[in-house]
């Protein structure tokens, strides 16, 4: 294997791994958008809040990681319940833009709440996930691959597979899709909106927790964690706001795309391609295929 090709492979693999992480964040958006038509501005902050809680209960109460995880999951479910009680319930039948504004407010509340409860200093998140380069890949293929990224990819794949089954095969999944399509009709067949909303926000909260732990292990738990939500936006535009596979494929395309562009295009334009590549790609996509790769085409009957 030539050195150039090996280097190209390393770039692609590291792009794929980053893409999986983007996909994880995008997944949280898709879930809530699918089931309630709300674009949840607070999704990024939910990742931060979840990771903060996870680290916080470890620090403050000295819980081991395996106990902190269910505790954090519990907090996210409680949060979902509170959001439904205090926010969503009062905004039934409002325009999506109103609900969107509500989630902006929610983002700030969560940010403040996280700081208040756990402090605003940068926290180290170490749950013993393997760090550094994989020796196996280095010895056998002479490729540099981060262990943490491999673990993240595996966990994300499991999560995605579980969610796909949940949405397609179960009664609750079908009810979630029903609520996404038409509130009144869903009520008329006996689906309780309140229950569905708590479920879907809980699931999105758990996805945010996983994403938060992964990103936190990589770069510490700090405010900038909530900004990864911005990277999830182009992923969503690429994959379609309503598609779980779309979030994955979109994440991978953007992850690989920006790494490859950075390495091979960077030198010619003075670098930092990684920062804008995703958005340019999304922009181009909006012009050609606004519903995304897998999104539902919007049909308006006139």
């Amino acid at each position, binding site marked *: 294997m030539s050195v150039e090709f090996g280097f190209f492979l390393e770039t692609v693999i590291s792009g794929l791994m980053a893409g999986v992480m983007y996909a994880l964040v995008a997944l949280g958006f898709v879930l809530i958008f699918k089931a309630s038509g709300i674009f949840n501005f607070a999704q990024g902050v939910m990742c931060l809040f979840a990771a903060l809680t996870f680290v916080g209960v470890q620090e403050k109460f000295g819980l081991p990681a395996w106990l902190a995880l269910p505790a954090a999951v519990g907090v996210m479910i409680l949060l979902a319940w509170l959001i439904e009680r205090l926010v969503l319930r009062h905004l039934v039948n409002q325009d999506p833009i109103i609900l969107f504004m509500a989630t902006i407010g929610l983002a700030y509340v969560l940010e403040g709440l996280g700081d208040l409860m756990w402090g605003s200093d940068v926290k180290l998140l170490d749950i013993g996930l393997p760090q550094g380069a994989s020796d196996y890949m280095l010895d056998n293929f002479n490729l540099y691959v981060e262990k943490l990224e491999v673990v993240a990819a595996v966990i994300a794949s499991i999560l995605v597979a579980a969610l796909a089954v949940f949405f397609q095969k179960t009664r609750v999944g*079908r009810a979630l899709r029903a609520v996404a*399509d038409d509130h009144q009709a869903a009520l008329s*067949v*006996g*689906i309780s909106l309140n229950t569905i909303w708590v479920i879907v926000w809980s699931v999105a909260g758990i996805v945010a927790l996983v994403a938060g732990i992964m990103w936190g292990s990589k770069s510490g738990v700090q405010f900038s964690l909530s900004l990864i939500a911005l990277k999830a936006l182009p992923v969503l535009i690429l994959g379609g706001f309503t598609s779980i596979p779309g979030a994955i494929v979109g994440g991978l395309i953007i992850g690989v795309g920006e790494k490859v562009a950075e390495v091979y295009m960077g030198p010619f334009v003075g670098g930092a391609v990684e920062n804008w590549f995703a958005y340019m790609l999304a922009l181009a996509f909006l012009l050609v295929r606004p519903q995304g790769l897998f999104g*539902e085409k919007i*049909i308006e009957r006139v």
Partner: protein
Amino acid sequence: MTFQANVSDAMSDVTSNAATGPAPAKEPEMMLAVEHVSLSFGGVKAITDISFDIHKGEIRAIIGPNGAGKTSMLNVINGFYHPQEGTIYWQGKVRRRMKPHEAAKSGIARTFQNVALFKGMSTLDNVMTGRGLRMKSNFFWQCIHKGPALREENEHRAKVEEIIDFLEIQHIRNKPVGKLPYGLQKRVELARALAMEPDLLLLDEPMAGMNLEEKEDMSRFIIETNQRYGTTIALIEHDMGVVMDLSDRVVVLDYGKKIGDGPPAEVQANQEVIDAYLGVSH
């Protein structure tokens, strides 16, 4: 006032049935009754002091000019709206304030004036949502799609296929409903309601926007549903020909008040009804 007597008759009839077994064929059993129901939104009165009942097994039409409060009435019955005054009797018992999904659980299904389907899903999935309340297997089995869950899913599929056959929508089984023509969408909506195997089926203008042939099909389905499954039906309809053909009894609303109640022929002859509704062209 004679109506009031009817309700209490029916009530005592139901209570005595509990002791003596099946109802005698002549005395109609009460499915639902509303008594002195009033509903307002802010200062606007949508329904004023309306009372009527629906017998078990009948087709009951609710008619009236636009804005008479017909849809509001259906929304009260299935729990979308909560009247400020009045009592609702459901199968002989006073019904407490109910949320729509609880009303659905108690056996009330409905369709909507402007078709309300799950547009992203196929016809089959839409109809399957109607079975949701009857699915009991636990979450774990559903996820792995084996064992009890698979068996249950198959049982429900069989029932759903029966309804799909009955309404003659086999050919669109796997099509996303958002892309279907309007007439077929209305039929899918009826299928979803029937999948719930309701005691009471509420149809809000089931034939609006249909051509003659589609109307005839829909009329046939409604009558067959009533006869084959014994489903009690309350429907709102503007086409007077259809109403007179289909319904056993008709209640007429105007400006949120009841102005007529009885068999079609009787209502048609009622001068007040003619003035308010039949004589007015839309």
